């Protein structure tokens, strides 16, 4: 069976203090079709989300038009996951 083409990315999101929890809930509830995981973290970013879309255009649309437009979001940093690397390593293990 042919698998669906997927573009995965980690999006590091900066929000004002004490808004991380709200953002995690918003991402998971409003965009469940794209957001696989979302966690609030300590450090350089406030929230890290793992996103999956069917194309890179869709990923950019989601980041630009949806996530970045949320009123509490100030910065997003998108890192596209290199395809198959995780599975390849898992396969070898």
């Amino acid at each position, binding site marked *: 069976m042919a698998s669906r083409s997927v*573009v995965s990315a980690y999006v590091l999101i900066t929000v004002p203090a004490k808004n991380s929890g709200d953002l995690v809930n918003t991402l998971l509830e409003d965009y469940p079709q794209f957001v696989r995981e979302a966690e609030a973290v300590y450090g350089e970013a406030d929230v890290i989300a793992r996103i999956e879309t069917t194309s*890179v*255009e869709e990923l*950019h*649309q989601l*980041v*630009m038009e949806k996530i*970045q437009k949320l009123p509490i*979001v*100030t*910065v*997003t*940093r*998108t*890192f*596209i996951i290199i395809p198959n690397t995780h599975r390849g390593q898992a396969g070898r293990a």
Partner: protein
Amino acid sequence: MSPTALAALGAAGAASIAAMCSIVIFIFGQRKSLQNDHLQRAFEKHLDRYEKVFVSARSAQDSLHNYRAISSKVTDRSDPFLFQVLTIAENACHEYCLAVTWSHNPGMLYLSVELEGACLRTRNLLLKWLGVRRMYAGEVAFVRRTGDLEAIPVQAVTALALGDYRELRIETRRLVLKEDNEAKRLEEIDRSLSKVIAELKKVMAY
């Protein structure tokens, strides 16, 4: 007619002419004096308004100097200090525009036509400067291809392909936009304000 009579007649004529001239000079002098008294009364009545024009012109000039200096130094156009000096400059310019406008300052009536013209020309320059949109609120985009982040147009983000970047960074920011010919425009405003300030000083010294 004897020469003596002619001389007497001439002297009488000259005396009459001198008297007439004296009367005319007196009348003109009187009118000038009345006019000066009137202008002095008007000046004293509107003194606080002229002071306001002077103060607002000086404030506008100083705040524009500050804006120009900070604007040329900052590397980040979203620097809050730049916003602050821009807001101060805009408010000062707005104050000046109000201070020289008839409906807010009837004392403009008693300024010389030249000085009034200079005040209004400066106001027009300031209004043109105020009319340019300098504040931008929206997204700015950067990509990291190798080392440093590189700014790209926001519209170009959706056209980025897989492998075009290592990191895509999008920020929601407020920016102070830089106008292309702003330096030239600010120099012209500065000259114009300097002229108004110098002329107003003369008026205030009166």
